[in-house]
């Protein structure tokens, strides 16, 4: 065995290096945020929120992209939340310990980490090709498939935190399962379930790849779900890679908006979750 002095030195070095690594990762976060603020803030102005995309050099903002993103996320939530909620409830209430429950949980885990670009390709094959064109519906559907596994996961986790005695008490009073679930367990886990939905919104809001092949993006005012629809991430993608200075500036403004939104949602939901557990 090595000498005590050497072991102490190793211990000290390991602690110092680990602390350094943790500091390094915080530096990366700060660096990304600093870049966004330094380049996004100067480009940010009322025009970003009030004007739609314009040709390079003609000003213009991100209004159509912001509205498009909100519409698609809204529809995705309307589709994804009920499905995810019921599936998560199934896992926590009916599927516990069964083969089919384990199977669904595993598949949901796979969907949760599956490359999102493949979900875009899937919806392209499913909705864009048969219906003859890119559309807001297809984009919303792709985002719904991003939303579902997040909601399923958090719903199951939160329902598992609800004490079994609460359910037993309700069943003992003769309540049917739908009443127990809707009036007792969902209500007890409400804050956690809402948090899960917020996390899903945060995730869907930043997704770019699945929208490339589904809602495509649109440089005009586009609020029809039947036509190609603009969205913030796609606008950032197009503008950032463009050779025009004012477009790149708009991309940074968009990036700042989206990151601030997503990080705020994340911090909020983490605060609620920490309180629950």
């Amino acid at each position, binding site marked *: 065995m090595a000498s005590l002095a050497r072991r102490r030195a190793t211990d000290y070095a390991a602690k110092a290096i680990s602390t350094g690594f943790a500091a390094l990762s915080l530096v990366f976060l700060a660096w990304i945020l600093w*870049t966004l603020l330094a380049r996004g803030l100067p480009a940010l102005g009322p025009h970003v929120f009030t004007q739609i995309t314009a040709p390079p050099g003609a000003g213009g903002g991100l209004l159509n992209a912001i509205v498009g993103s909100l519409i698609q996320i809204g529809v995705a939530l309307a589709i994804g939340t009920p499905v995810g909620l019921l599936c998560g409830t199934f896992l926590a209430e009916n599927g516990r310990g069964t083969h089919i429950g384990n199977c669904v949980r595993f598949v949901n885990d796979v969907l949760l980490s599956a490359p999102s670009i*493949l979900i875009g390709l899937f919806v392209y094959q499913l909705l864009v090709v048969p219906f003859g064109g890119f559309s807001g519906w297809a984009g919303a559907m792709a985002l719904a498939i991003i939303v579902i596994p997040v909601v399923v996961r958090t719903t199951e986790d939160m329902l598992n935190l609800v004490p079994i005695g609460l359910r037993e008490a309700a069943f003992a009073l003769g309540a049917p399962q739908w009443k127990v679930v809707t009036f007792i367990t969902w209500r007890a886990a409400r804050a956690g379930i809402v948090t899960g939905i917020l996390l899903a919104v945060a995730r869907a809001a930043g997704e770019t790849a699945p929208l490339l092949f589904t809602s495509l993006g649109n440089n005009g005012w586009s609020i029809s779900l039947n036509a190609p629809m603009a969205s913030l991430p796609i606008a950032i993608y197009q503008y950032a890679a463009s050779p025009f200075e004012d477009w790149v500036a708009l991309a940074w403004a968009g990036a700042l908006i989206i990151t601030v939104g997503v990080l705020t949602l994340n911090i909020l939901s983490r605060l609620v979750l920490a309180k629950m557990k």
Partner: protein
Amino acid sequence: MDATLSGTQADSLVAARKPTGRVSDPVFVGLLWGCGIFVLILLGLIIAMLFEGGLPALREFGISFLWSTTWNPVTERFGAGVMVFGTLFSAVIAVVIALPLSFGIAFFLTEIAPGPLRRPIGVAIQLLAAVPSIIYGMWGFFVIVPLMAAYVQPPLIEWLGPLPLIGALFQGPPLGAGMLTAGLIMAIMILPFITAMFVEVLESVPPMIKESAYGVGATTYEVYRNVSVPYGRTAMVGAVMLGLGRALGETMAVTFVIGNATRMSASLFAPGATIASTIANEFPEASTGSLKLQALLQLGFILFVISFIVLALSRMLVRTKG
């Protein structure tokens, strides 16, 4: 009085006492089951549609599509070799960079950090995972790529390039964009996932085991290395594979910084392409029903198979904790 009650009357009494459950409950439970099964069907549909969409390309080029390194839209000859290589190479670079960092950060968060700082620092590191992929792409493209080209790659090429064996990794022009840059950005992206799971595993190590090691005079680092880590090794390997799985499918960040060249090179600095970046880049130029689109869908199917295998393995390992 009971004697006068016929069977059907008793039935209707029972029924009257639980009016809500008879019809609505089967419907509700059916709905729960339906949504559970729906998720299974969804995954099945994704696999089926990607495979079916790419089938014509597989028929055209045969099984050699998997490793053929030709990608020529002009002559309509397509192969997945370069992209499969790029996907695996960049993801492995990401894991090689992220693994020691996660290892250290998990040690910091579980053993070193003072109590009140643990959560805020942990959450801040987790926020790295919440930053959208496209933001990493922009940051990488505008900030990291120029830095790599100006300050990192030239000295590495000068010092390490002439060496035998490993020299080949460090040759080529310092473009900034390329495999190493993509790997580096992805490492920052997957680091929070791996760290979070490491911390979870390490916190599940029974305190008694650690205390006995401390009792015989082990240092904090020795307890971490020789007790905690071996205890949770299986789950930690699973966590690393989950990180690998995420890196394999990463799209937007990689598309910005990998250079997008459909050539194969062993150099860390050479521009390359991954399956995901190729799909994102070339999809706009692929018309419906074209051979190119089918080749892209087939690429998607290959990516799905690779990430499915990696994710499935990681889940199995994480489940069997310890």
